[in-house]
């Protein structure tokens, strides 16, 4: 998720959301599969309709539809139900899009990683996309989806210097860019208000972030509040029409995130809207029309809404009545906040998309995320916690396979990717797939994971392969002591940093695991730091603190990087990566595999075709998970 974080720094709320969308990008049209083993493909099918949005005027519904492995943009008139195909692309499909007016949409096409962005504008009635930007080196992103003077769009681009983003006014008629604000070099993020005025900026020196504010576009930016990256300070939106205070999710001077109102002239907290010692705010539902936050979502073991006013409670309470016993997320809405796209999910159900029209109190189902999945065949995800050797409480989730047997099960330990992320409660295709194959799946929110407060997060800094690994080991020992796990049949599998943890656990505690699998796993912390792209240079110091400083922590980084320790692996390994993935060093992984093979360690090496973590294409996912299934079967079903 590196790149995405780069786009939306600090806004982990959105990142989590994207993660969820990512994990549930699966859809199938073949219903009614037998009980027992469900085909790999049913879990990992591509979703054929995704990214539902509503036009600003609330009259048109839009979505991406998969055609021949390619996503194209479609719109549907809500009143008449008439569907129009807006794009008919070849080669590369639409990756992302947004509405900029009631008729016009901007979309990005799929691009190889670390290359520039290709941005187009299209009129929903005319089709005929027009290219606005196609600089192969420069990235471009829309800051505010509101047209200024009907032809300008506020965008950020690193076209002048690949390491920093400046703000430009993009003329959508001819695609010309006019510099609106030059980045002095330390501005990591620009934030505009709902009218497209650039009023907020976040400057970063790598470790500390400074929130800058200006009252009008003519005034200079003034620093308002400075905080370390260990703190969270995420602006949610402007409070009131005056625009002198903002709502923000903040944990400055607190352990957990609270929703506060921040005075931008003084930098002081004006009021605390929601705070609890035990609840961590991850999301604030901001109403642009009312310029206020209506509810916050706090996440403990699962996400829970807390309404901030009676009006909101009445409004959204109706939704909870319409869709009971399921989690609910607002995916999109129109400007008047009348037409909503909703998504439901539970731990055993990937969920569906719904269209909700508030004034008519009408709910319409749009599509299932994955119609191949039947809720009764899926397994329950239960929150668990254990105490690590140093007394820290660590949370996680345990998903037991269906069936009467609840003891001595083969276990797949699934450490999540990182840094700074977590496992949450909800439908997870990978987890359900493994559980369906008869394995208990154990997810651990090891220290350093997001969502358990500042202390818990910083406790994981520079502990990769050390205390983080110990947390996983302690968790596994706890599971063995609880008699859930069959001590002789435990495997560990992870993606990205999860793969790093899996390899570390295998190298240091080979007595505990029979096999380890790493999907695009980090094998070398030095290379990981090197892989941070230049335009994200401002965050480098932060990564030095989280992961390790390659100048001062060489010994630690060497000690925990698996690539240096091929001699410490003695059990079967599964290693998958995309050799063209710029985020990892493919050569190093191949070298590791070679050395292991020379030592006659059974290694399954799978080269993925595209994508970093999850293969973009359905066939690729199927190939990967079939290989993983085979590998786990060989080692766990003995």
């Amino acid at each position, binding site marked *: 998720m590196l790149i995405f974080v780069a786009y939306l720094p600090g806004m982990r709320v959105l990142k989590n959301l994207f993660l969820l969308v990512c994990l549930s990008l699966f859809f199938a049209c073949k219903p009614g599969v037998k009980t027992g083993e469900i085909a790999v493909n049913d879990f990992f099918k591509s979703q054929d309709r995704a990214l539902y949005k509503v036009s600003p005027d609330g009259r048109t519904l839009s979505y991406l539809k998969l055609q021949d492995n390619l996503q194209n943009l479609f719109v549907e008139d809500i009143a008449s139900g008439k569907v129009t195909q807006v794009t008919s692309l070849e080669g590369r499909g639409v990756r992302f899009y947004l509405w900029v007016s009631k008729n016009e949409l901007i979309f990005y096409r799929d691009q190889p990683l*670390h290359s520039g962005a290709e941005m187009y504008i299209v009129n929903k009635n005319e089709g005929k996309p027009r290219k606005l930007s196609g600089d192969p080196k420069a990235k471009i992103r829309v800051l505010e989806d509101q047209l200024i003077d009907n032809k300008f769009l506020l965008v950020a681009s690193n076209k*002048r*210097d690949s*390491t920093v983003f400046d703000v430009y006014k993009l003329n959508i008629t001819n695609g010309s860019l006019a510099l609106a604000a030059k980045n002095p070099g330390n501005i990591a993020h620009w934030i505009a208000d709902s009218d497209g005025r650039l009023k907020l900026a976040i400057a970063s020196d790598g470790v500390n972030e400074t929130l800058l504010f200006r009252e009008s576009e003519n005034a200079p930016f003034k620093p308002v509040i400075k905080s370390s990256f260990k703190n969270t300070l995420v602006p949610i939106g402007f409070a009131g029409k005056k625009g002198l205070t903002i709502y923000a999710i903040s944990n400055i001077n607190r352990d957990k995130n609270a929703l506060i109102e921040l005075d931008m002239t003084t930098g002081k907290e004006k009021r605390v809207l929601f705070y609890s010692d035990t609840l961590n705010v991850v999301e604030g539902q901001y109403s642009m029309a009312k310029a206020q936050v209506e509810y916050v979502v706090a996440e403990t073991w699962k996400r829970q809404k807390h309404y901030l006013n009676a009006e909101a409670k009445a409004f959204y309470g109706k939704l909870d009545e319409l869709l009971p016993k399921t989690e609910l997320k607002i995916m999109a809405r129109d400007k008047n906040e009348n037409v909503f796209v909703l998504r439901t999910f539970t731990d055993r159900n990937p969920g569906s998309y719904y269209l909700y029209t508030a004034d008519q109190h009408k709910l319409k189902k749009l599509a299932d995320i994955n119609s191949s999945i039947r809720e009764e065949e899926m397994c329950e995800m239960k929150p668990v916690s254990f105490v690590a050797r140093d007394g820290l409480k660590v949370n996680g989730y345990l998903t037991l396979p269906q069936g009467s047997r609840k003891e001595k099960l083969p276990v797949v330990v699934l450490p999540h990717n990182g840094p700074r992320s977590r496992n949450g409660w909800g439908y997870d295709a990978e987890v359900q797939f493994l559980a369906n194959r008869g394995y208990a799946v154990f997810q651990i929110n090891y220290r350093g994971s997001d969502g358990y407060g500042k202390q818990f997060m910083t406790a994981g800094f520079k502990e990769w392969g050390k205390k983080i690994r110990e947390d996983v080991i302690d968790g596994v020992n706890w599971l063995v002591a609880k008699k859930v796990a069959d001590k002789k049949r435990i495997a560990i599998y992870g993606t990205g940093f999860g793969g790093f943890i899996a390899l570390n656990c295998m190298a240091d505690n080979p007595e505990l695991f029979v096999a380890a699998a790493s999907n695009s796993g980090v094998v*070398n912390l*030095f*290379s990981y*730091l*090197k*892989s941070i*792209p*230049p335009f994200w240079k401002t965050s480098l110091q932060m990564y030095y603190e989280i992961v390790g400083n*390659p*100048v001062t922590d*060489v*010994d630690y980084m*060497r000690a925990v*990087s698996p*690539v*240096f320790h*091929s001699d410490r692996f003695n059990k079967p390994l599964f290693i998958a990566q995309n050799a*063209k993935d*710029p985020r990892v*060093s493919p*050569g*190093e992984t*191949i*070298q590791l595999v070679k*050395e292991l093979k020379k030592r006659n360690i059974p290694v399954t090496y799978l080269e993925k075709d595209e994508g970093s973590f999850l293969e973009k294409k359905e066939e690729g996912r199927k190939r990967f998970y079939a290989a993983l299934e085979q590998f786990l079967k060989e080692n766990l079903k003995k």
Partner: protein
Amino acid sequence: MIADKTSGYRKNFLLIITFIVLISVLFILSLFLAFNFSNKYIENEFGSAKVNVLEKTIGPYNDFFQNKIPEVSYYNGFLDSATASKFTDTVLLKYPFVSKVVFYDSEVKNEPVRDGINASHFSFGPKAIYQFGSLVPQDSIKLFSYDNTRSFSVGDDFNAIGFKLVSFVESLDTAKAPSQDELFANFSAIRTNRITYLNIPRREDLKVYKEMMKRKLASLPVYQQDMLTFQLDPYKIRIVNSRPLLYQRIRIEPLTYDPIDASDNYLITEIALPGPFSDYKLYFQSSRSFIKKEVFSYFLPIALILLLVYAVLMLVAMLIYRNLNINSKMFKLQYDFITNFSHEFKTPVSVIKIAGNNIRSASSLTEREQKHYGKILDEEADKLNGLMNKLLAFTQIENKSISLNQEEVSMREFIESTIESHTLKHSDFEMSYEVSGFDKFITDPVLLGSLFDNLAENAYKYSNPGNKKLHISARLVRGRIVLRFADKGIGIAAQDLEHVFKKFFRIQNQYNQQGSVGLGLAFCKELVNFMGGEIRVKSKVNRGTEFIIVLPYINT
């Protein structure tokens, strides 16, 4: 070829002797060839096994080259003097042939450097140079730094890699990913006794390098590159003599080494070392007497196998000879049997002939004469019939073509009737008997009768007149019937004892000049075997013979 035709049976002893001589010649010949082969083989081995020695000897170097050197890249340019020192310590410890490591903590810049290489806007120069090694004194570890450049000039090694880097970046096609081999080749330089390696930058960095060469980038980027030169000492390579019996001495010598005193007493071969050691070779030397041992150790198992084959062939020859011998004896026995048998037939036949003649030539026969001739004819016909029956029965039993009758027999009555019939025939035959432990049992009375008659007949025949005695005892011992026929006869010599039950065997003495075919005891043995029992004989010459028959005891 002379064959012993006297018996009508061919005994080709000459053939056997020829055979033995031939295989012996063959054996000696093959030994000779095997030895020659071993000699040639070992000489060839001497020439070819050096590859194995080279492979084993160079193994640690390959490990160093393929696994340890690429590790420099894992640090991604983050090596500093302290880390490099630790890294080289492990290298020096594990690979004794590395004598010194020079570490160039270098930078790739967009601005010209004073020491190093400048190619258009692309510059590559060292920040500091360190050397590590067991013989490097503490005060000369740091060779070069920005502040103090006097003590060292950026030398050959640095330039070699520098030029490579510049030309690689210049010709880099950023559109396609260079292969690992290509990268390795371009970021390492192998020269005599030294390997220089520069950490391989990421593909993204290489793209920036390319840009840097074209123009000055606004941000004036600086990239860290680690370069290490490993100085190698070929003489420190640990030679692994995997064939200590083949190679007496293996040394590392310069490629030009070629001593003139290499006399004929020594076998010599050599093989060049690879990579940075290519100016050196492995020099193998063994004295001829040393090689001999290896030849013998190779020849010995071959010789043993040949000897084994030879021994087996000799054994086969011997067995064939033995079988021939036995067969010839058998042939003789059968020949004797036919002679005896015809003799046996002759007597009654001539008696019948004479009686017939007399009857024909007599004009009239008195009643007495008629009775007399009738009796003679009748008796002699019986005799012939008996002979025929005996022969027939024997063949039948031998072929197992008759079946056992199962009847209840009283042992006492049976023996008494046997005694009665024999004393009636021979009035001077003294017979006694005893039965204990049982009386009635199930058997075939006809076969049992034949057995008793034969043994009684034998006892009478082979006893001196006046001492013709036979004691028959029947006992039940451990569930089996044990019959003993003990006489006071002439006995059987020890060397003949084992043959008495063989077909057509007769002991040559005055007692069996006529009326014996050598079938009696063989017949008895066949009978007993047929009845599921066994027969043994004990005898002492002039004291008597005892036949012991053990039969299964079957009762109702």
